[in-house]
């Protein structure tokens, strides 16, 4: 993995954030901005680490995990979809980690931890939105809103109400993927 997809996206995000700060500076800051200092790291991905690690009651299996299936990734109860909010890209011409043609995957995402019923292992799932096109009009079966370990927006990396479309050509939401990042251990 010499120049990985993630690397490229990371670069993209850096550029985008620089632009965003620049734009904000131009438009909004009448005087000097008040910057709130905090002990929390700024990068969402680092916060996600804490969120995923400190799940309460981790010894028990959630109702979602208990009922999840591993055969049809175009259904809400597919095991990776334990904390997804949106339209499944697999119902839109994409796949479980594939954006439909004409859309772009967001370089950043929210993170869930879901249990695979086949091997009983838990995996970290990156719920990457596909962006830049009007909403996918798929079957209502493909509109999911699950909530295992989903946290409020002040823990953004664990929040699935955010439109995770920060790095693409536009932040218009099309659908959501559930890419496997690695085993949760």
């Amino acid at each position, binding site marked *: 993995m010499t120049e990985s997809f993630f690397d490229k996206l990371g670069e993209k995000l850096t550029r985008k*954030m620089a632009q*965003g*700060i620049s*734009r*904000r500076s131009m*438009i*909004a*800051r*009448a*005087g000097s*901005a*008040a*910057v*709130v*200092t*905090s*002990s*929390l*790291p*700024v990068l*969402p991905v680092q*916060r996600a680490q*804490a*969120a995923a690690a*400190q*799940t*309460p*009651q981790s010894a*028990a*299996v*959630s*109702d*979602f995990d208990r009922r999840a299936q591993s055969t049809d990734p175009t259904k809400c109860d597919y095991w990776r979809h334990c904390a997804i909010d949106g339209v499944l890209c697999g119902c839109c011409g994409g796949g479980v980690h594939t954006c439909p043609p004409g859309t772009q995957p967001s370089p*950043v995402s929210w993170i869930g931890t879901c249990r695979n019923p086949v091997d009983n292992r838990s995996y970290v799932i990156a719920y990457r939105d596909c962006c*830049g*096109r*009007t*909403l996918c009009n798929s079957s209502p079966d493909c509109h999911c*809103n699950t*909530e*295992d*370990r*989903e*946290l*409020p*927006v*002040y*823990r*953004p990396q664990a*929040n699935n*109400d*955010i*439109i995770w*479309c*920060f790095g693409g*050509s*536009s*932040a*218009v*939401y099309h659908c959501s993927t559930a890419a496997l990042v690695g085993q949760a251990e």
Partner: protein
Amino acid sequence: MTGWFRRVSAMIASVVVSSPGLARAADPAPVLQAEQSDVAQLPAMGAHWVLPYTKTTAITLYDGDNGHVLGTLPATPLANTVITPDRRSIYITETSWSLVDHGDRHDMLQQFDARTLERVRELALPPRALVGRKQQNFDVDANGKFGFIFDLSPASAVTVVDLSAFRVVRTVDIPGCALVFPWQGGGFSSLCGDGSLTNVAVGSDGKATVTHSKPFFSADGDPVYEQSLAERAKGDAYFITYSGKVMKAHLGPQPVIETAWSIQQAAGQPVAGTGVQELAWRPGGTQPFAMFYYNHHLFALMHMGTYWTHKTAGTEVWELDTQAHRLVRRIDLPAPAKAVAVSQDQKPLLYANGENGNLMVIDLQNGKTLRNTHIDAGAMTLTPP
């Protein structure tokens, strides 16, 4: 009567009757006269008006008493809306692209006149947060001087708008924190990922002064709902956790947070914990809470479920006395609901957005369901303050 209208009149004069074969009514009714097109205006905002988000394009303004549509405000599910304390204006923050899904991004604050529903003013904003189902993405302080708009790009910030001058005063970065809970005046607090509050005082000169409170909840253990309630007029917030603990706070540079009490315990039920297999009555939905501010009764959408069901629709609404910490009543809903709202008058109505897209209207004087109508209701409903 000149020009275009004269031509129309000439046209009318030459058009033949299209039903000569039919006898006229025995009683010769007068010929109906031409009408002029006009535009409706609304009376002063009534306490029983209700403003649900509908489909993905609008907030539809209904008369809660008869179910009639009064008007339409343009709003996507990502728009945020505030009815001003004087009920004379409706603010909507919105984001759009010049070419629908591409082109230039526009983040706007729009002010609508509540009687004409005309767009009175609009203001370009820095990029605002695109995150659904959060009343507290945007609010104004009680005296209507400042508006506070949550940004997330993905770093957290709040844009402060001077509503009189209708201009952006500044953007305040709030790293690790989110949402705005306005003070009685002159500032706001935000919820933070470490369980604390960040408090931002904004002086009349626009200068921002920031303080931090100590953590009072655990974002990992039992987070406070984003949809916790702000009472602008008093500068109070009612922070409610996933498991149903309520913490009243008086906001300011040094917020005062009262001891938590349990919704379930107040109702004589077991206190709900955070077990993923622990069945209990729990709050849930996209707008799970509303308050009748006259007596500070809390209305909570409740369902039976395990932990991590904080978005699950409610089958009942529980009315709770937030001062006595006791249940007033449980209201069975005609259908599971994701959002709840309440009118602020002496004959209060309860509104609930069904998962099925219905708007349910319940008379709180007798608990009866007045209406249960499909309106493509979305994730939120507003009522006049």
